[in-house]
């Protein structure tokens, strides 16, 4: 396979290509991409791969509304691309069905290997014929158990020592040159509070998504901007268990009154462990 291991592709390049495929990048940038597409075999293949990934996101209904609209109106215009989308849909449905069958077979096998249990009630003949008494007894038992558990294992937040890690990001910090902010997740960190710096804008509603390569691992809408010390930023909490070690990108989009998304900024960060 030609040049397979020499291809260097990062999330930014994939994003740029995705924007190109949806026809939402400036002409000069598109021209660079197109000349490379014509002259570079590896890059041509990269375009094909990115097309497939975009189609998969569409089929899985995981494109934001504005991109979905662009996909249908701009991208899905040729027979070849429609065939790609049809195949992606069939393939995804087939894989989902296969997985469901495997899970169902595993559950069936597990149930079949369990020994039949004796009924619980027959040994409690006294209670079987006195349902009200049984109910009161069970209820009392439950209350006592809950009380015991509460007294014995009362959660103490300071003892648990969980943390929310604040992370301030500015737009455009990229991987190259080692400038990408690194976030270290200790076991105590349960969530991250991202502060995404933005230029002052008239928008009151933002949508943000966290991407690991091309996969969206978290998204949040109805985010409102806050002003602190003359700077505007958007705050977003992300559960720490969504972030494995690696490089990530946050795409922040403004939501217009009509619900359309407009990409405002991209932020890069990487996650490392202690």
């Amino acid at each position, binding site marked *: 396979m030609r040049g397979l291991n020499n291809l260097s*592709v990062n999330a930014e390049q994939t994003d740029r290509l995705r924007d190109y495929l949806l026809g939402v990048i400036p002409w000069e940038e598109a021209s660079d991409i197109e000349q490379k597409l*014509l002259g570079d075999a590896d890059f041509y293949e990269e375009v094909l*791969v990115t097309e497939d990934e975009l189609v*998969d996101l569409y089929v899985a209904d995981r494109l934001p509304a504005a991109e979905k609209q662009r996909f249908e109106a701009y991208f899905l*215009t040729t027979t070849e691309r429609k065939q790609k989308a049809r195949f992606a849909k069939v393939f995804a449905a087939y894989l989902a069905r296969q997985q469901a069958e495997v899970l169902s077979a595993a559950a069936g096998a597990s149930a079949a290997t369990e020994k039949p249990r004796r009924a619980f009630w027959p040994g409690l003949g006294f209670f079987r014929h006195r349902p009200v008494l049984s109910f009161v007894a069970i209820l009392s038992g439950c209350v006592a158990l809950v009380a015991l558990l509460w007294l014995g294992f009362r959660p103490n937040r300071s003892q648990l020592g969980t943390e929310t890690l604040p992370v301030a990001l500015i737009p455009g910090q990229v991987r190259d040159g080692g400038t990408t902010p690194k976030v270290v997740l200790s076991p105590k960190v349960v969530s991250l509070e991202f502060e995404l710096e933005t230029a002052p804008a008239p928008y009151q509603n933002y949508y943000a998504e966290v991407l690991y390569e091309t996969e969206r691992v978290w998204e949040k809408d109805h985010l409102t901007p806050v002003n602190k010390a003359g700077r505007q930023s958007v705050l977003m909490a992300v559960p720490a268990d969504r972030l494995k070690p690696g490089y990530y990108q946050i795409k922040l989009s403004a939501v217009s009154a009509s619900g359309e998304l407009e990409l405002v900024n991209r932020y890069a960060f990487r996650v490392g462990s202690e």
Partner: protein
Amino acid sequence: MNKDWILTQESFDALLDWLDPERDIAGQKYEEIRRRLIKLYACRSCHEPEDLADETINRVTRKLKEITTESKGDRVAYFYAVGNNVFKEYLRRRLPDTPPPVGLQSNNVELEFACLESCLAELPVDQRELVVNYYQDEKLAKINQRKLLAENLGIAANALRIRAYRIRAALQECVEKCLDLKLQ
């Protein structure tokens, strides 16, 4: 533009000579350029990218004498420049109402599954496992699965991505052929 101009064998041979003195290599280059021009026009949301690619090649072929006497520049750049003119003309004559996208619903789901199963069965075991495992699962599970796959194969994530794509492309071609046969 001379719309009556026809690509003759002689002019096509001249194009191949211009692309490469070795005829086999020239043929491959021709195919590659045509394929990539089709993609370029598809990326510009043109409805008939094949027609536009052929028109571009015809025009370059027609201008070969001027091109070869002017300079021996980058061939791809010529195709790109001529392609831009072809595209501008296309935009001028394109009808404002473009057809809506075709729905992706299928009436032959079981047949498609049967073809997919048969095509998967034709793949070598390692390729079958790779393509199924690569595209299975949802979101985070998929990310973890892909990481694991790349580690097991001892290749980088992007190499795995390209490998999975190639198998998938072959699978799609096989399924389309199978459906064509069964729906005849």
